[in-house]
């Protein structure tokens, strides 16, 4: 879901404003491609209960957007990704504002108060499970992309239930495609009902142990219906989709033909010994937006 947005300067104040706009929107508006895919699924579904659940999900999306209500009570952890390419004018790398992280956190404090979103973050996972009360910190990343011109900002809200249902495995390279296929099927079928189906599934293959999960998350950003540019991956995605949707898990885990709305695979280089695979399950309320940023500063 990429849009073009003009900002006067590539500084933290302007970027924070884009983050605020994005959070305000995605917390109550379903990704347009997800909503469209739900409507297509409703036309195809033959089981009455599945049709009823899909109807509820669509009605919820319309109600949340119209009344500015949260799409889901789990308003998520915030993931912000700033990708910096080269300047169009000079060809030199664009620089990141040094206080971006703190500015993003300030923005989150304001947005959560203003829109009455749920504070879902704890001070420390193990040592201090006290609610931070304002949904900070965000998980903000800056990534340098020398092959890209300009800058791109992505904001995602990730629910805990679907994140819990995600996984990572270091497979044996010789097992290849078959092992990945089995891993995805076994994992999705065992966890789908917990992750609020119909799901948007991102699969990352490659990089290293710490990076492959990020790859899977980025795979989820590909708009539903946009084909994978690699025909082999597109074929695998279709095979996985068909198998997942024949499982009968269905919308809300209550049975039906629509368990996944999309499977997107993203691959990358890796070590000769490795085949890292990550599966990121996105719930029906997968909330994300990307902006291609433009302006004189480019």
């Amino acid at each position, binding site marked *: 879901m990429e849009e073009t947005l003009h900002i006067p300067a590539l500084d933290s104040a302007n970027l924070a404003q884009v983050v605020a706009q994005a959070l305000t929107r995605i917390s109550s508006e379903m990704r347009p491609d997800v909503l469209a895919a739900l409507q297509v699924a409703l036309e195809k579904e033959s089981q009455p209960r599945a049709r009823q659940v899909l109807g509820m999900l669509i009605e919820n999306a319309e109600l949340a957007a119209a009344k500015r209500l949260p799409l889901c009570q789990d308003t998520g952890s915030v993931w912000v990704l700033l990708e910096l390419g080269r300047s169009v004018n000079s060809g030199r790398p664009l620089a990141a504002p040094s206080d971006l992280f703190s500015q993003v956190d300030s923005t989150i404090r304001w947005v959560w108060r203003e829109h009455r979103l*749920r504070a879902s973050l704890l001070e420390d996972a193990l040592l201090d499970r006290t*609610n931070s009360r304002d949904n900070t910190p965000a998980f903000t990343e800056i990534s340098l992309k020398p092959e890209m011109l300009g800058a791109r900002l992505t904001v995602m809200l990730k629910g805990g*239930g679907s994140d819990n249902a995600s996984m990572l495995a270091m497979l044996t390279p010789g097992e290849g495609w078959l092992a990945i296929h089995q891993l995805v099927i076994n994992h999705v079928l065992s966890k789908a009902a917990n992750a609020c189906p119909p799901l948007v599934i991102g699969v990352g293959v490659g990089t290293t142990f710490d990076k492959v999960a990020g790859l899977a998350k980025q795979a989820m950003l590909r708009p539903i219906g946009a084909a994978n540019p690699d025909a082999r991956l597109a074929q695998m995605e279709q095979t996985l989709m068909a198998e997942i949707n024949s499982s009968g898990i269905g919308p809300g885990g209550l049975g039906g033909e629509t368990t996944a709305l999309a499977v997107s695979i993203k691959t990358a280089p890796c070590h000769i010994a490795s085949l890292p695979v990550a599966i990121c399950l996105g719930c029906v309320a997968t909330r994300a937006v990307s902006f291609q940023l433009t302006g004189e500063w480019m």
Partner: protein
Amino acid sequence: MTVSVIQLALPTSKQILTTLEVGQELRLSGDIYTMRDAGHIRCLDLLEQAGQLPFNLAGQALFYAGPTPALASQPFGAIGPTTAARMDVAAVRLYRAGIQATLGKGRRSAAVEQACRECLSVYLVTVGGAAALLARHVVSSELVAWPDLGSEALYRLKLQDFPAWVAIDTTGRQL
């Protein structure tokens, strides 16, 4: 196949619960208490200390949920089920101590199926990702305990025609 929706008033009786069958569609009205991860830890501590459920929870139903704050003159802007499997570790003890029904999402362990059979209790599910819509079926809420837990505090809700399905019935069958 007859598709009928059953109106279930909460709290209810074991007699009524035993008439429910897995897969049946319900409309819940009446009282239910929100409790999720942090609340379960406290509830089990209190149960252990006192030998009985705190806050008169015996005979009541639990909703595994952490709502968003009040919005637009509603008790909550959005409320929906969280993953029930995370509460499996506590569920057997809570059913045995008198919890009649739990409401969440997703599948549960064999131990929870067994507890439902043993205690003549049920596990119900509702739709995740429909929280703005579900909030319309919560007519009021009252804080009972643990305000420091924020959205994980213990609230007593009044439901009105809240949509749910029987996911484990009193014979221990799971959807």
